[in-house]
């Protein structure tokens, strides 16, 4: 396989429970605090209340928050896009004149999340069509492209928990192929009753704040948010005087083809994804400064992923940031790519909040406290329901 040329990341937007933007999230993660709460936007009849990492309304610009014609997921995506474009120095008019692709991952943004409509329909009523029409106009990538009047490829990736990572890898390939000149890549998802009910029914949620890779871990906490990266070809970024924050050096993905909800016990798809990512980046495991792991804190994920990390990267520090953000599903890979870039810039990774005691079954321990890292290359990986595994290799940009 040909070694692909890198894509430059010239702007980043990020909104999650940890912070209203990437800088705020990095600051709060460095301080190590977190405060997941039971959901506020909806109530459920479960005997227990499971904490979630919600995004406060105040984190979203008022004009976007008021766009009730769109799903919250889509409003998050637009807010992160706005941040990213400002960071990259792209103004709206210049963007419209270019060929701009949009590739976003989501779960809720594409789901038929129409509970009230459906309840009324089931009861024999004629519910208002607004929920349906909102769903039809809220496809995240389509909505971002439409709202900004962009001309170029558009793709909404619905690969569950690896969507955000996949979206970035795909967008980079668009640039190499000349399908567009700029790509907005990332992911977005919102907390909602359906997803909350679903994950609880699978018995993989924790009624306490989650404990990634910890011996006593009981499951994940859900989260929400969005992150969007502006990608360009390095020569184009240089030509317009933009600074490159980081580069997408490599991407790999593979399917376990094993089970709908459980990862392959030996992590076979994850190993393949790592191999492809390293090969496409042209690096070896020893070159990797750190890894932002998927680390959802479910017994299965952390055991499988931890073992693979131990086998392939025995000397490499890794962190799970899901203790600060919760599992943001379709947004996770993008939010974590954003964190990875910021960590490369600052030369340090936060501690994996929630981890205190190593699990002897895993044989790998994440960074428990903030750690200085040395090196120019890092990895973010994601494992999804259905057995999708995706790995992104990111490199330092301009200093």
């Amino acid at each position: 396989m040909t070694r692909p040329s890198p894509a430059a990341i010239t702007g980043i937007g990020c909104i999650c429970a940890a912070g209203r933007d990437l800088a705020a999230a990095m600051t709060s993660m460095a301080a190590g605090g977190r405060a997941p709460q039971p959901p506020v936007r909806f109530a459920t009849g479960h005997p227990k209340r499971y904490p979630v990492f919600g995004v406060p309304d105040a984190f979203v610009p008022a004009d976007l928050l008021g766009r009730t014609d769109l799903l919250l997921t889509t409003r998050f995506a637009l807010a992160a896009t706005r941040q990213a474009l400002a960071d990259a120095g792209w103004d709206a008019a210049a963007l419209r004149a270019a060929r701009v692709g949009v590739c976003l991952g989501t779960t809720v943004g594409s789901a038929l999340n129409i509970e009230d409509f459906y309840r009324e329909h089931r009861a024999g009523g004629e519910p208002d069509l607004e929920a349906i029409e909102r769903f039809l106009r809220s496809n995240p990538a389509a909505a971002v492209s439409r709202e900004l009047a962009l001309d170029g490829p558009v793709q909404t990736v619905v690969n569950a928990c690896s969507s955000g990572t996949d979206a970035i890898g795909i967008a980079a390939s668009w640039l190499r192929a000349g399908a567009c000149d700029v790509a907005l890549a990332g992911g977005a998802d919102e907390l909602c009753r359906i997803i909350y009910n679903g994950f609880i029914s699978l018995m993989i949620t924790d009624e306490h704040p989650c404990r990634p890779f910890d011996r006593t871990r009981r499951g994940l906490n859900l989260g929400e948010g969005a992150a969007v990266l502006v990608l360009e070809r390095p020569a184009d970024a240089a030509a317009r005087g933009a600074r490159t924050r980081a580069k997408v050096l490599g991407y790999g993905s593979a399917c376990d083809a094993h089970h709908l909800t459980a990862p392959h016990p030996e992590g076979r798809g994850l190993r393949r994804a790592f191999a492809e990512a390293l090969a496409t980046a042209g690096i070896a495991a020893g070159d990797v400064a750190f890894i932002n792991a998927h680390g959802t804190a479910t017994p299965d994920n952390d055991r499988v992923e931890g073992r693979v990390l131990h086998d392939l990267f025995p000397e490499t520090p890794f962190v799970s940031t899901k203790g600060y953000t919760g599992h943001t599903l379709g947004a996770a890979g993008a939010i974590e790519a954003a964190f990875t870039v910021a960590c490369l810039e600052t030369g340090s990774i936060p501690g994996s909040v929630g981890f205190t005691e190593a699990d002897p079954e895993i044989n790998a321990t994440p960074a428990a406290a903030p750690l200085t890292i040395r090196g120019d290359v890092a990895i973010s990986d994601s494992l999804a329901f259905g057995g999708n595994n995706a790995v992104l290799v990111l490199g330092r940009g301009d200093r």
Partner: protein
Amino acid sequence: MTVKEQLKKIIIEGINLEEIRPEQIVDSAPLFGEGLGLDSLDAVELVVLIQKHFGIEIKDMEEGREAFRSIDSLAAFVEERRKG
């Protein structure tokens, strides 16, 4: 209907084992792995079915694991929890 008969019916309907008849399920045979061949996703579905049909809450899969070994163990579990 005995608890065991009820459980077999619930499992066949709730877990889409359309080809199996209740009399084909051996009371002492393993439900998971071999025997009926159910897997981890069926296990969490069974937790919900037990909740729905008997009102019994299983808090985690450690609690479920022993109970779910066979129809015999599941019936014993249900009967014991109903008393308490």
